């Protein structure tokens, strides 16, 4: 042990308070979870803690601070037991690309090395149905975070209007298949990522085994045609049997800044539970929308190219899509690395004019499909 390296976790703050007579109260504070613990010690302990940064061995720390090595070991035992310190493997090559994220994981899951969490994440395989604004942002964030295997499903091509919200769309790739353009973009981030593109539309009799291989870890559904509820039921029932989790993303029309739902077989409510609670909640809600429009009235000039666009209809911005995607990616990564995700059965709608979430709770229903 004498020749090993240890460091105080990056995410632990240390506060000190002089109690007089050379005695200090030392408070350890986990900045992300706000847990704290205090000890009382002599001043020398402050000097030791200040250089507990993984660059010196226990023996070297003892020499530098002119302290008995056994006292250092006692302190170290306390730090390790409380998860305030970790061992640093000097021989291990530091993953330069992900070191800051690894450090975050270190703190997020104190019982596992951040490097292992990173490796686990990189081994995952994700299928995304619909790589539009939200789906594309999710893919980009996951790729940047180190997920290495993707399948993108989308039959659409990028059009001019996509520049407003698709972060991978620019004047150079308009006209390309969304899947191919996104693939190109992501390979520029990391050219070792494996990406399969399927330029097909999901239809009621699509054979899902052609899209979702059994080794898939998570399916993300952002396909909102004809309606996200319909595609989610089809995909959701299939993956439930296959014991594959599904994330139904938010951020679609009328829910431009919503969170999504993570559905984990046998653990959470199934897609039918969700659909049934939606149906129940919206039983008496039969709204009308003024969507019949005569474009020649509303538009100055040639309206041929915009006949499918609803003026005054669903509106959104790039920041709204990125917001929904970010929330989703956080939930997705936490699930993939085995962290208990809170708010599993809740959907949040961020209110852009109030700056808060409102939450809808999906209580567990008696469900025929998942037999909860």
């Amino acid at each position, binding site marked *: 042990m004498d020749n090993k390296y240890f460091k105080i976790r990056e995410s632990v703050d240390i506060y000190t308070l002089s109690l007089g007579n050379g005695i200090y109260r030392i408070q350890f504070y986990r900045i992300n979870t706000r847990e704290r613990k205090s000890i009382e010690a002599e001043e020398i302990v402050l000097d030791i803690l200040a250089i507990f940064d993984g660059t010196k061995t226990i023996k070297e720390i003892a020499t530098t601070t002119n302290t008995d090595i056994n006292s250092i070991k006692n302190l170290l035992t306390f730090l390790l037991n409380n998860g305030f310190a970790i061992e640093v493997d000097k021989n291990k090559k530091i993953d330069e*690309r992900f070191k800051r994220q690894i450090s975050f994981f270190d703190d997020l899951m104190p019982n596992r090395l951040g490097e292992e969490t990173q490796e686990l994440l990189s081994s995952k395989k994700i299928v995304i149905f619909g790589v539009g604004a939200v789906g594309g942002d999710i893919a980009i964030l996951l790729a940047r975070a180190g997920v290495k295997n993707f399948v993108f499903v989308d039959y659409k091509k990028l059009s001019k*209007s996509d520049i407003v919200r698709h972060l991978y769309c620019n004047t150079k790739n308009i006209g390309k298949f969304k899947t191919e353009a996104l693939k190109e973009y992501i390979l520029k981030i990391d050219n070792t990522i494996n990406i399969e593109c399927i330029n097909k539309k999901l239809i009621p009799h699509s054979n899902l085994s052609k899209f979702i291989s059994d080794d898939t870890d998570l399916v993300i559904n952002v396909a909102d045609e004809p309606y996200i509820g319909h595609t989610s039921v089809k995909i959701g029932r299939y993956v439930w049997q296959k014991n594959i989790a599904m994330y139904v993303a938010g951020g679609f029309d009328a829910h431009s800044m919503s969170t999504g739902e993570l559905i984990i077989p046998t653990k959470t409510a199934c897609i039918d539970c969700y659909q049934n609670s939606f149906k129940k909640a919206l039983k008496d809600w039969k709204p009308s929308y*003024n969507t019949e429009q005569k474009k020649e009235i509303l538009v100055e000039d040639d309206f041929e190219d915009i006949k499918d666009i609803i003026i005054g209809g669903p*509106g959104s911005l790039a920041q709204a899509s990125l917001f929904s995607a*970010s929330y989703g*990616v956080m939930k997705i990564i936490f699930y993939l690395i085995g962290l208990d995700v809170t708010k599993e059965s809740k959907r949040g709608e961020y209110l852009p004019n*109030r700056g808060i979430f409102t939450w809808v709770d999906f209580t567990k229903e008696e469900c025929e499909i998942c037999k909860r």
Partner: protein
Amino acid sequence: MKFVKDKIFRLRASVALVYTNKILNLFKTNVRENIFLEIDYDEIIDLLFEFDGKNSIEEVSTKKNIDLEVLINLIDFLVKKNILIEIDKKYQAKLIEEKYRLINFLEDYCYKTSEVLYKIENLKTKKVLIIGMGAVGSWMVDLLARDGVKNFIIVDDDIVEISNLHRQDLYFEDDIGKYKVDCIETKLKEINQNIQVVKIKKKLTKDFFDYFNHQCDLVINCADFPSVDFTTNIVGKYCMQKNIPHIIGGGYNLHLTLIGQTVLPYKSACYKCFDSRLKVINEIDIKGLKKLHREKRKLGSFAPLSTIAASVSVLDAFKILCGLDNYVVNSSKRIEFRIREMDFEIMQIPRNGNCIECGKESICK
């Protein structure tokens, strides 16, 4: 000059209408707001559907046999609630084709179509200064460019490193070793070749603004060297003097999870109001405690947290640039995203009447 009765309105397609038990429920789906109206008129939805962008008020009044004045009062109310919008200018097909989602979003904040068009045009003339092109700033500049902002001043003296790629936008493997501001300029030009970028390859030092002589409409601080407190003070002071709205984006005091606050000078809490308030709160929290300085500390970071902060801040930035200050949501608040709870925690930080920067006694205003 148009008579009121000749004005033309459109019932906005994003509004959901339900009429039951004499209550009209109008749900604005884009901003998720409900309006309830008690109204004893069974044909109310049919009536509202008459506002198709063609019929004038008078024509609707005649067709539905409703008193003109009563109708005008109703319209007035519904326009103020952004249910109806006056069509005083037609949109161009090309603009709709390229920006219909943006137009539809803006319609929730405008009374007339000409206002929507004005805001879109006006965005092009606005100039935004962003300091720090890291985990928050890089995403913000990308988003603002897509919103239609055309003039940027970006400040950063860093070059792209491999360790940036996991959380920062617009940088790719091929960019490693290049200046961040150069990479950003290239990427922004690909979004729109008319975007103008002034690049400043400098750190934000105490004397930064002594040599800065650009006009700008919004300042966003995402610089954290040597600390966020340090950069916030420099930016805060300058912007308060010049009366420029500013956003302090990104982490604060080693808090990755903090959402930057928006400051509307002399209207919302300024950096000094925050300072004095947080000092009181922190004192209760850690009375007499001193932080142990650790030289080689390198904190963790996680992209989705940065992008939540960036997206929420850009929503405020967009509102400010469109003259929608009343809709800004991140001012006079300390907002933190709690990872374990996956929700925001909000603490109100009101303006301090005795603030040395923006209070009664201050020199400015």
